């Protein structure tokens, strides 16, 4: 995932240099919705990247003299203790007590049925005697004020730099931003940033003492699960893309460029693959993989490795099922391109086929590739949830939104109902998919020349 981020960054640097490539992207930053979506996406990606940096911690427990090896990510460290502290079972958001009654033996030997106090949440309240609502307000206000102050400092730095770049003075540029008169939609971007920033700081002050989204059946913090699921969602989206892109790109352009038997074979391959219903192919393959894993247990010694193998396999299969669509689009576009004068001119000049494809055709189909990839991304995140529900998604031990939703089916059937894991996962998933969709829209409007003309006319 880091490597992908690097590629995007390098591509960004190259694009800046070439004005004809940079122009469509500037269009995206002009659109308010596109900019908002971009900021939200950046936050998701940042969390995902933080979660990807793993390192091992050796902890030595004193009384047992045992050394245990733990794999942790930077995100775990930032989130602090909630990753390891487990309550007994369900508890409501911001609760101080468990959600279910249980038998407790009082110090004087009596047994009563009551809601026991949480082990790790709101422990300081008992000592200080303050009320819960008061404590939550104080904590969120502290968080909010820190967020606002830091935001103001950051924002003024950014505005200062921007003003310097545009050679205007600071207050003038500030006014332009507040009125929304800048070229890039800075006002919207900064507002979105402020809202997310506020949320992060408030959450940061609350998570150390409360379970802000409650806890699940085995007492794990739901907020922590939802945050960790970001990585699973992003990994599925990006890895699948990585698997399918080379196939679709190479085969699609080849099929379009060389007529004849190469075209026939490639067309045959993708028609065959796309005529198998996607869900069935995926479930069949995962089924087969499960049998394979359980029959070769020595290849996958730990649960972690099994879960990873399954995640990887899921990405590959999703890639296989989804490349056909892109391949068909690319073939069609290449068919059109190869008849154009500049391709025929390079033919006449004796340029090799491979070079024509690399130099002339692939750059000219790139807009289709980017549009399809961004559109597919949100679809993949949603697909993960459905597949997990069917039972062929990621491993049940992997933290993912699909698994959370899946387990919440039983929770809704309980009396009284347990609604917070479902809500938390849906909100997190919804925000990611929504921003990906909005971003995809902005990208499409900016890159698709036909659509650009269309929209321009209707708005005129």
């Amino acid at each position, binding site marked *: 995932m880091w490597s992908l981020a690097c590629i995007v960054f390098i591509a960004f640097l190259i694009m800046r240099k070439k004005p004809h490539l940079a122009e469509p992207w500037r269009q995206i930053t002009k659109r308010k919705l596109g900019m908002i979506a971009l900021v939200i996406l950046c936050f998701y990606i940042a969390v995902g990247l933080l979660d990807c940096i793993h390192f091992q911690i050796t902890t030595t427990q004193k009384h047992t003299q045992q050394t245990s090896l733990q794999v942790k990510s930077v995100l775990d460290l930032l989130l602090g203790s909630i990753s390891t502290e487990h309550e007994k079972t369900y508890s409501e958001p911001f609760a101080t007590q468990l959600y279910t009654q249980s038998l407790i033996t009082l110090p004087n030997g009596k047994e009563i049925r009551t809601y026991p106090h949480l082990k790790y949440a709101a422990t300081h309240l008992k000592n200080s005697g303050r009320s819960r609502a008061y404590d939550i307000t104080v904590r969120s206000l502290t968080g909010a004020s820190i967020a606002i102050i830091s935001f103001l400092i950051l924002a003024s730095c950014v505005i200062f730099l921007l003003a310097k770049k545009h050679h205007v003075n600071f207050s003038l540029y500030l006014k332009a931003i507040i009125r929304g008169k800048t070229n890039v939609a800075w006002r919207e971007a900064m507002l979105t940033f402020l809202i997310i920033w506020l949320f992060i700081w408030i959450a940061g002050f609350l998570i150390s003492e409360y379970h802000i989204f409650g806890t699940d059946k085995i007492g794990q913090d739901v907020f922590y699960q939802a945050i960790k699921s970001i990585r699973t969602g992003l990994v599925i989206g990006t890895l699948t893309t990585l698997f399918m892109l080379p196939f679709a790109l190479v085969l699609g352009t080849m099929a379009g460029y060389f007529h004849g038997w190469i075209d026939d074979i490639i067309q*045959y391959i993708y*028609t*065959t*693959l796309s*005529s*198998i*219903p996607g*869900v*069935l*192919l995926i*479930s*069949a*393959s995962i*089924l*087969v993989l*499960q*049998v*394979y894993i*359980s*029959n070769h247990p020595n290849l996958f010694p730990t649960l972690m490795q099994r879960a990873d193998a399954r995640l990887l396999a899921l990405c590959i299969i999703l890639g296989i099922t989804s490349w056909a669509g892109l391949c068909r689009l690319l073939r069609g576009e290449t068919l059109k391109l190869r008849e154009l004068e500049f391709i025929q001119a390079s033919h006449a000049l004796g340029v090799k086929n491979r070079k024509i494809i690399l130099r002339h055709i692939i750059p000219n189909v790139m807009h289709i590739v980017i549009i399809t990839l961004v559109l597919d991304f*949100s679809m993949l995140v*949603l697909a993960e*949830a*459905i597949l997990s*529900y*069917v*039972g*062929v998604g990621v491993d049940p031990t992997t933290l993912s939104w699909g698994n959370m*939703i899946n387990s*919440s*089916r039983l929770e*809704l059937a309980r009396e009284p*109902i347990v609604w917070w894991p*479902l809500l938390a996962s*849906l909100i997190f*998933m*919804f925000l990611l*998919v*929504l921003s990906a*969709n*909005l971003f995809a*829209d902005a990208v499409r409007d900016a890159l698709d020349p036909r659509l650009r003309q*269309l929209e321009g*006319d*209707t*708005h005129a």
Partner: protein
Amino acid sequence: MLAYIIKRLINAIPILIGVNIITFALFFMVNTPDDMARMHLGQKHVTQVAINRWKQQHGYDKPLFYNAKDSGIKSLTNTLFFTKSLELLTFHFGKSDQGRDISQDIAQRMWPSLALAIPVLLIGLTINISFALLIALFRGGYFDLFGVTVCIIMMSISGLFYIIAGQHVVGKMLRLVPVSGYHGGLDAIKFLILPVAIGVIGGIGAGTRWYRTIFLEELHKDYVRTARAKGLSELIVLFKHVLKNALIPILTGVVVIIPTLFLGSLVMESFFGIPGLGSYTIDAIQSQDFNIVRAMVYLGTVLYIIGLIMTDISYTLVDPRVRIGSNT
């Protein structure tokens, strides 16, 4: 016309064989029948004798491609590939692991699937097209922006949310309809209302947005300008001219999925306990019944190919400009 259909059907044969080979490779070569037997008999303490008995019971005790024991044509026919895989081509699905006849099961479970899928398609189509027309009528304004935003928001909500929330609110809290289950005959309506409604609502976002794009594209063509130049009102232009012409791209999208309606919806059916083909497949996946999964993969492929051919034929019916059989 007939010659064209026959030609397309012949073209479909290599694709079917290809699908056959893929499923065969998945189910028999990656996992040998020995693995499957071990899977079903439990992981530990399985003797080779027990495995062989299981294989014999379920007809897996043959070599993969070439049977050296038999002679002549039988050395090719008396193999797993021939009996288990090529049989599918003639729609002999064989028996499931519980010993039930798969073809019969499919024929029986098809109807509940259709009872759910057809209303979802028809109602959804009507609602989506009317919304899209409405948005296209007020294009460029705030209503357009609002409509598109709502569509994107609805698209971004996971389909599971609609199902879970609908089931919970309507089924459990208001107690208007049973939460899940199915009953034949007229009683079915009671069980189907909620899934149909949810299916329609879940599809509105993506559908409306897609049709809106189609309408906008049509609105750009020359005949629209001519119609306006004649002094026709915007409403007539939209409903009489644009709607008719936009039907062609809409039709392509719809006709392809008509045959696959038989397969039902995996998620909806299992959530609402409707005994259709979708829940049949899910049950098979969860109980790891390879025969059923293979049969469903094959059936799905056949239906998809039929859908593609139907699309091409329906083109000629709606659009006289398209001529099938000519060399265009």
